[in-house]
């Protein structure tokens, strides 16, 4: 099932090579993650109303915790579990590879974990920015399968890791809310929030 779905999605650039070229730019390791982090900067500095800004900044802090947790969860998993990439298993004439050949574990997708941790954390409190981030995350993770470096279950696993990380970050944010408030007050005292 996983391989069939992989072949179906990865077969798209076989028919339309341009799609593969474009998606390899969108879904590479840097482009979308930098855009997502830059959106955090806009949320921190670009909100006019004080109350909304405080909420945005708290949300950004929780999203950062979620990204950190998602990274840690992926590192811990891949220390004990290794799944070869599709191009390492399937015959090369059945894989349309639009990327370099990563050597780390295919499962879970670190990219999917990070972008979904960020998107879900933001979506929990800011629907507008959250929807933008979720759309970015869905396109990016779909692209990872399309360009031939992940199976669909890898990115689904990554999404689940991201969701769990954002839930934990939300809980941590509630438990340690006084620490977040202290940090925001400190930065406000020095004209940075």
């Amino acid at each position, binding site marked *: 099932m996983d391989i069939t779905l992989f072949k179906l999605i990865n077969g798209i650039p076989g028919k339309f090579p341009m799609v593969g070229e474009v998606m390899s730019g969108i879904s590479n390791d840097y482009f979308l993650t*930098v855009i997502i982090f830059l959106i955090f900067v*806009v949320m*921190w500095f670009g909100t006019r109303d004080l109350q909304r800004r405080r909420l945005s900044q708290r949300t950004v802090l929780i999203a950062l915790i979620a990204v950190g947790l998602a*990274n840690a969860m992926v590192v811990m998993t891949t220390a004990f579990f290794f799944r070869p990439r599709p191009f390492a298993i399937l015959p090369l004439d059945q894989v349309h590879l639009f990327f370099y050949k990563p050597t780390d574990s295919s499962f879970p997708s670190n990219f999917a974990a990070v972008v979904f941790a960020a998107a879900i954390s933001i979506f929990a409190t800011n629907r507008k920015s959250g929807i933008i981030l979720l759309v970015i995350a869905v396109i990016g993770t779909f692209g990872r399968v399309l360009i031939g470096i992940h199976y669909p279950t890898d990115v689904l696993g990554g999404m689940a890791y991201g969701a769990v990380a954002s839930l934990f970050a939300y809980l941590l944010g509630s438990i340690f809310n006084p620490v977040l408030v202290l940090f925001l007050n400190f930065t*406000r005292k020095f004209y940075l929030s």
Partner: protein
Amino acid sequence: MFLKLSFVYIILVFLAGVGVLQAAAAFNDLNGLLFFPKKMFSYFFALVMTGLPLAVLFDWNWHYAIGIIQGAEQTELFFLTMVLALFFTLLVSSIINVRRFSEPNDNLEGLDSLRKSTYFQMLKSHFRKKN
């Protein structure tokens, strides 16, 4: 290879970060953070400064087919570079706008105080009050 990739990544994030900070400051009327007196210039500057690095990042795999900055390292590098971009913005905007805003505005607090004062003016006023 990692050092070279990291260096390129830092430069790109720094440029994009400075650009995004200018756009956010212009949108939020944080005049003390702007490099240009007219908002239009700030938005144009932000567009160029953010657009070019993003175009290079989009093209990354064609330039650097080998090597990767892992997720956790990428996150660390991004935030260290953003801190640098922020300090650069605070420094340059404070120097450029020193004559534009003569007195620090004590009626506003936090980030809002940068609407009518530069960062260094506010910092100076903050420590003067303490002493």
